[in-house]
């Protein structure tokens, strides 16, 4: 019996306090307004308050905490990316995640399982080797492994896919690959921010952003932020962070900024709870499939993006059919196991599969977007880096490569090979 639980049994009355205050009405002005109460926005608020000494912060959330991508992803954390900029950034996230339960005093069930990206062709194995070499150079634990090793670690897998698919030739193995309880990450950051005085408003929508100056004579976007309009009134703020992922196009229209984001749905599904058997995270890029078993026993599984642009979170039968087929290609005995629920989230995709972060041409307007299918794993580091970026009004070292301006300069950070499915 862990000591932490004894207090519940011994106290007569349930004495746990609210994790986040209920603030009815925003103040007239804040130093920083964060749009979006998902993991990223809340983490940014937390680090602003706890590391940058900026506590006069409001988080404005249209729905509820962690209701977007934070609560819809398949909760995989890893850092075996392809570019130096990407790998360093996600590695910092892994490091923050590994200590996050203690830092925030909230058990997020951060569970290191080991992460396999199966290669069904020599070409796929080449890409895995590329990732492994970059990773190793940067001190990230990552290795190309053969069939025997895979079979030892995942004895249930059918390496030959029953003849339905090309056989597995090998895999990229990333021992630090982990899963976590995704909602808890948002809640824990919310509580941590709230304790330092950050005001969090749920069910509050930003309706417009007030810019002074705006578009200049030559048509370039510029000016500076002076506040946001919400359905609870105008809030004055010199610094505004947009951390709304799939809803970024709506926010960017308010400030006149252009980004190359496209919005696609990404679907996932979950089975009935099963006794633990799958102890690793299994990804097959060729089959567009990834699967892990949650601590509740459910198989949590997903595939690739829906191939069309759409701002909708409906599910499709075709997705469930295709993904089920691929699950059985890998684990042929699952035919009688039942799928309980399927759902979808929105992904703000970038051309190079890396995020858009940092300062913008509008003074005081910061963007944290382009989270596509890789946003959850970056929650701590994006909050951390954005907080410092906002505090110093300059891009933090870790995210310099991700600035929006890279598209105009063709300085892309190509992570397609590492991010398109294997997230």
């Amino acid at each position, binding site marked *: *019996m862990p*000591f*932490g*639980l004894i207090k519940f*049994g011994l106290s007569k009355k*349930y004495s*746990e306090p*609210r*994790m986040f205050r*209920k603030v009815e009405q925003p103040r007239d002005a804040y130093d920083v307004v964060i749009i979006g109460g998902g993991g990223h926005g809340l983490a940014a608020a937390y680090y602003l308050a706890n590391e940058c000494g900026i506590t006069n912060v409001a988080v404005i959330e249209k729905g*509820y905490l962690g*209701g977007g991508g934070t*609560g819809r992803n398949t909760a995989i954390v890893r850092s075996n990316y392809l570019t130096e900029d990407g790998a360093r950034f996600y590695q910092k996230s892994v490091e923050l995640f590994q200590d996050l339960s203690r830092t925030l005093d*909230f*058990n997020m069930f951060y*569970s*290191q399982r080991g992460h396999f990206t199966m290669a*069904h062709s*020599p*070409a796929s194995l*080449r890409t895995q*080797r*590329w990732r492994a*070499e*970059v990773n190793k*150079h940067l001190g990230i634990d990552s290795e190309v492994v053969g069939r025997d090793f895979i079979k030892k670690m995942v004895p*249930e897998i059918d390496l030959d896919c*029953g003849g339905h698919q*090309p056989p597995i030739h090998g895999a990229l193995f990333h021992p630090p690959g982990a899963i976590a309880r995704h909602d808890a990450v948002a809640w824990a950051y919310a509580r941590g921010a709230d304790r330092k005085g950050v005001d969090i408003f749920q*069910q509050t929508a930003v309706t417009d952003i007030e810019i002074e100056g705006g578009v200049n004579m030559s048509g370039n976007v510029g000016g500076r932020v002076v506040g946001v309009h919400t359905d609870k009134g105008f809030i004055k703020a010199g610094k505004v962070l947009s951390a709304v992922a799939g809803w970024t196009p709506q926010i960017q229209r308010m400030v006149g900024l252009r980004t190359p984001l496209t919005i696609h749905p990404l679907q996932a599904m979950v*089975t*009935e*709870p*099963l*006794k*633990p*058997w799958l102890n690793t995270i299994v990804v097959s890029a060729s089959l567009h499939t990834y699967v892990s078993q949650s*601590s*509740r*026993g459910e198989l949590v599984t997903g595939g690739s993006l829906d191939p069309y642009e759409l701002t909708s979170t*409906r*599910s*499709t*039968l075709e997705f*469930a*059919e295709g993904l*089920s087929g691929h699950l*059985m290609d890998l684990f*042929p*005995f*699952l*035919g*009688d*196991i*039942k799928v*309980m629920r399927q759902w979808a989230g929105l992904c703000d995709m970038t051309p190079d599969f890396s995020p858009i972060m940092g300062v913008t041409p509008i003074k005081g307007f910061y963007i944290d977007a382009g989270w596509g299918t890789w946003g959850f794993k970056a929650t701590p580091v994006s909050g951390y880096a954005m907080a410092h970026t906002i505090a110093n009004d300059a891009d933090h070292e870790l995210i310099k490569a991700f600035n929006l301006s890279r598209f105009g300069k*063709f300085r892309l950070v*190509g992570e*397609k*090979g590492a991010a398109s499915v294997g997230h």
Partner: protein
Amino acid sequence: MNNRLPKQAGEWIDRSRELNFTFEGMSCRGYQGDVITSALYANGMRMVGRSFKYHRARGSYSMAGHDAHAMLTDGVRTNIRGDQVSLESGMNLRAVNTAGGLKRDRLNITERFSRFMPVGFYYKAFYKPRWLFPFHEKQMRKVAGLGAINANNAPTNSPKDYAWCDVLVIGGGGSGMSAALAAADGGARVMLVDEGLKLGGSLVWQGGGDHGGRVEPLAAAMVAKVEAHENIEVRCSTMAGGYYGDHWMGLFNGEKLTKLRAKSVVFATGVIEQPAVFGNNDLPGVMLASAAQRLMRLFAIKPFEQAVVLAGNDDGYRATLDLLDVGVVVKAVVDLRREDDVLSTDAMAQVRATGVAVRMGCGIYEAQARGTGRDRIGVAGVVVCPLNDDGELDAKRCETIACDGVAVSVGWTPNAGLLYQSGVRFVYDDGLEQLLPDVVPATVFVAGRANGVYAWTDRLRDGERAGLGAAGCLGEGNGEVGEGQDVGGRSKVAMSHGYPIFEHPGKKNFVDFDEDLHLKDFVNAHQEGYDNIELMKRYSTVGMGPSQGKIANVNSVRILAKLNGKTINETGTTTSRPFYQPVPIGHLAGRRFHPMRHTPMHDWHKQHGAVMFHAGAWYRPEFYRNGSMSREDCILSEAMHVRKSLGLIDLSTLGKLFICGADAGAFLERLYTGHFASMKIGKQRYAVALDETGVMIEDGVVSRLSEDRYYVTATSSGVAAFYREMQRWALVWGMDVTLINATGQYAAMNLAGPKSREVLAGLTDVDLSNDAFPFLGTREGMVAGVQAIMMRVGFVGELGYELHVPANMGLRLWERLMDAGAGIRPFGVEAQRLLRLEMGHLIISHDTDALTHPDEADIGWALADDKPFYVGQRSIAVMRKQTLERKLVGIRWEAGYSGPLPEECHLVIDEVRHKMVGRVTSVAHRSTLGYALGMAFVHPDMARPGTKIDIRVDGGAMSRAEVVALPHHDGEKQKG
């Protein structure tokens, strides 16, 4: 089977067919037509499973598939739903979630620690110190989960099929059958699906809500009429699992998935009875009144000997009459409503007339257990208390009534999962205390109890209305949203109690049986700030279990609304998602039919020792076995033979496209970077295509066959996507072009080597002389009697001819060439890769990546900057103003070098600065030139021939190579 009743009208069981099975090692008997849980109940097994968290004894509660604890395993399958799976002879069943068997489940110990495990306790412990979490996690994972997988199970292989109908009616009860008949009489083709074994729905087990047997003959007559109707196809034991827009549905019948498209849909899905929350409300023997009625009517089982009925509506009295009918002693009806608030009904009067005690304005405070600890496996009695003015039970004035069963009839909620998915929006009616359809999309209809219509006569009328409407609007839906569908048949009195939830200081009172959540858990979660419905769901996990909250969500919303002092409508509901009930992965997966493509010469290759490999959707020869030679020796030998003599390779997987029409040249001019409009007929040119960001995405060869007809080759793996992209551009640009993807219609092969002209000349009349048919020429002519497109190419660096012929002629030509002598040998893809590497020809996506632009790949010469436009041109112009960051170069090692050699994708390292400065894209450890060679991306500073570069290989050793100018081999070069 001592508690089977005499034959019941409409019963599902077939008494002539007795089935033997075992449960937890005990021998049992049932009938054909039983579900597993009914057979268990008939054998006196009140306890069927253990609960998820506390491992409390649980019995059948819903008899409708909403009990996560009623899941079993037969050793092969797991999580078998006892309420939904028909009994089969010889089954050996066990409960899934126990340690040491159902009776002696050791994990019941967790209940003793439940006071230490409030809602979300796992977020508050186990993480300090960090190194101990894996231990805790292991323990927690072990107790989580329900059934265990069997990794030896053979893969399922169920087919799938498609179905169409005019009107789909979901639910075969009174309103559904009525709707089906009305629509079918109007000429519509109707499909009627029901998840039950037989039609009839609640008309059969609930007597239509009008006690006295008047309904049963009518139900039987309706069933007969429906089954005989030529326009109605009935599918029982079939569940509509999910609704996916435009009336696209997945139907699951226990054997396979049927995908169905309907023109309009009637949801006659009925209602799901909801629990009351009181102390020990989960003991085996406490069940929904509808569960008791199902046991009695469908399976002819006497549910209790002595019962107490908890009523919050008139249905409780009807259930009481049903119980009395089969000889159950009803000790009391405990009615949550106060005498003054209720208009007496026929059923109430009849119950009172039998002398059964009725306690108005009272509730059950707790059910008393038979047995103690983990052996609390039944009900001994109930404690009944009066309700005070605040709707709370006054525990000081209690009365204990002995009984062995409790039937709970306190209200219903629409079976609405599919309706939500179809776009129906519900509002909570404060008078009726239930959700009602408010906004219903066009071509969607809701009928019967799901529509708030309860009296059976009204339900038939409501069904008729919906059926007529559905038949009348066929194909006329345009997505607009209509108003609600109340035609006056909706119940005027509440059939649900507004708050059948009662606190208990000592005993657990469950709200979510799946997840073992009791009232206190909700109060505590709310106290911690999880005070909206979505956060409450995620923090407490209410509704996230196998039943997806079908008998938990409504009460959880009521609790939250009360805690917040808000209405139900202000509180809202969570989103309903597929599936209605969980569905097998195997049925979704189907037969996993992934066809592979064979070239016309496939069998020939196999007969001649080819080792085949998967190349996308194709099989291709990697190399041909040659005696006892190693793979590497075979490949080198094939390549050497091409250099010295003659080889033939199957290129049928190449993308082959005809671009025709007045704008064909102009189209290619825009699509690719080079000049094609001015190309002479009979010429060919290397072509590279970029995306809008200037990244190389495709390459191939464009041949001009006539004024307005071009023949284009594309990469095997890229052609499908590129053809789509071509079609898109043709539309965007509005050009007069016809695009034909002839990849599968044509076979292709490359006859390469110094002797190729000599051999080919013997098979064609086409003049092959260098003047008549120069390098990079394309001709059409007869080869070996076959009409062919002939292209003089140099991909492998030798004199060579690509021959493209109709696919059905491919093998014939191949064999004629092989027979033509001159020592010709086939060569595989690996030899071709080596030969092209020696020529310095890059392969898109092998030597390039997702960001490679032409200058980096050193094919800037292929960009025609004098053109007004090509895709990616603008980006190239921007990029060319910046410094190059990398360049693709040739690399080689000395002949006789014996040090370590890299694999493809090993990195070029600047050891002094410990920086990554490049990557090997292609490497051949042996070549026809006698030394190892390859291509690599390197920093432009290192791109000058003669520069030495260091490549880190496996194990960390360094391999030093020299940058060289391409090509390695000075042969007939295709590009440039």
